[in-house]
């Protein structure tokens, strides 16, 4: 592994007093994509929420480019070079598709998004609609585009392909690959092997709030991954 860009060190936490994630460590290198896998309810989403400051960790640290961001409000993340795309409530339903994309920009021009609109023409067609009227899969695409376009070095995405059609999953994978080559790093929580197999450099598997396997994607056969995912 090259020098790590994003490091999670012995992170613990959960909701209320219950610990869902216990002492999890994980690192993502520059230009690397790490896929976080596991069955429903093993603490994957909780881990990324803790890492991105949405939940307050009970212990451990998170650093990006050597700078500790543990316990900082999530609104500081972008300044530190970290983007987070949540699993649920992924877009602003009350805002139009265009507003969702340009919300944090100085102007409302959509030029910067042309390259994404070419890949996902559906979003361009619906840019004047309220995002709340999009289907679940379309919302995921919008959230994905928003995350990539923010231009942070580190992108954390929770289940980007939920409800997304096969062709678009492939296109998402292609976009991740091209952004990796430009130096972006990814931590992707995923259940869809179509995406995992196309983008993952390393695979981390969680169970019961703990990492149970971690290794290069090339070293893992599909059956081995599946053995962790099905009961």
């Amino acid at each position, binding site marked *: 592994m090259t020098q790590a860009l994003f490091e999670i060190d012995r992170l613990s936490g959960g909701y209320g007093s219950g610990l869902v994630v216990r002492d999890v460590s994980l690192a993502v290198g520059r230009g690397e994509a790490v896929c976080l896998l596991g069955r429903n309810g093993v603490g994957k989403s909780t881990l990324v929420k803790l890492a991105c400051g949405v939940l307050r960790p009970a212990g451990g640290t998170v650093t990006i480019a050597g700078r500790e961001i543990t316990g900082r*409000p999530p*609104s500081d993340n972008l*300044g530190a070079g970290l983007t987070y795309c949540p699993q649920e409530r*992924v*877009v602003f339903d*009350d*805002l139009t598709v265009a507003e969702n994309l340009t*919300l*944090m920009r100085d102007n409302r021009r959509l030029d910067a998004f042309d390259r994404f609109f070419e890949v996902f023409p559906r979003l361009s067609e619906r840019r004047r609609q309220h995002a709340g009227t999009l289907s679940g899969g379309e919302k995921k695409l919008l959230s994905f585009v928003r995350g990539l376009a923010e231009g942070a070095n580190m992108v954390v995405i929770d289940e980007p392909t939920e409800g997304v059609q096969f062709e678009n999953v492939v296109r998402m994978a292609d976009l991740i690959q091209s952004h990796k080559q430009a130096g972006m790093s990814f931590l992707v929580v995923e259940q869809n092997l179509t995406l995992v197999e196309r983008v993952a450099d390393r695979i981390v598997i969680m169970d019961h709030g703990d990492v149970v396997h971690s290794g290069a994607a090339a070293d893992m056969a599909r059956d081995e991954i599946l053995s962790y995912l099905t009961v």
Partner: protein
Amino acid sequence: MESLVVTQAINVAYEVLILAALVLGLAVVMGLLNVLNIAHGEFVMLGSYTAYLVQKAGLPYLAAVPAAAVVCGAIGVVVERFLIRPLRYDPFETLLATWGLGLLLRKLVELGFGRGYRSVDIPISGSINIFGEAYPTYRLVLMVVSAVVLVALFVWYLRAPTGARIRAMVGNPVLAEAVGIRTRQLARNTFVAGTAWAGVAGVMIAPLTPVEPFMGLTLIVNSFFALVVGGMGTVTGLFAGSAIIGGLQSVLTAAVSPTTAYLAMLVLSILFLWQRPRGLFPRP
């Protein structure tokens, strides 16, 4: 006859614009942040008392505008920090808390100034002839100021990203934080902007109304129900609600009696709360 119609029309326009100016602050706090600030009328009242003090001190009347904004804004900061934020901006809980706040502010002012009416001199005297009818200049100035402020704000809200960010924050606070919106500050600033503007509105109306500790109660009723009828969180709703409630009040007052006007407004509001609680033009 013709001139009577013109005067009436100007009166209706005046009522509507003044109501819209009064509703504006509440529309920000209630329409955007979902905080049912029942004490909003008391902020207007504090603005009027500030105007009274400024005038009494011999300062130019315009100085009351920043003074009221600062006074009401500062109280807004305290209220946000110790009342609204701890209640997580919940509509129902803030309704109760600001009910208590209204009581508190009324009593504090009563303690300081007594129950009696204070009158504020009209800063711009004289009148202007419109189609042969004399109309007080100050009222016309108020109408223009109110219209300009509303239009300016409307344009700003549609163009500047802050409006969209406020909507984003209200609709999905977690994601708003994730995309870099400092939701705490934004919510506080929005709330304070609403209370500060209420103070300015208080300065505007002070010369035309008896200034007393309980003046906020009637103001809040009209403003509140204008929003209920118009719909929360949209500029169209603000205008529509002010036009309907203000227009209805003004026309019925002139044609029948103030009591009928007031009752008609209440009945209309009850019908809306019952059958269409989100108003005519709610946020989608």
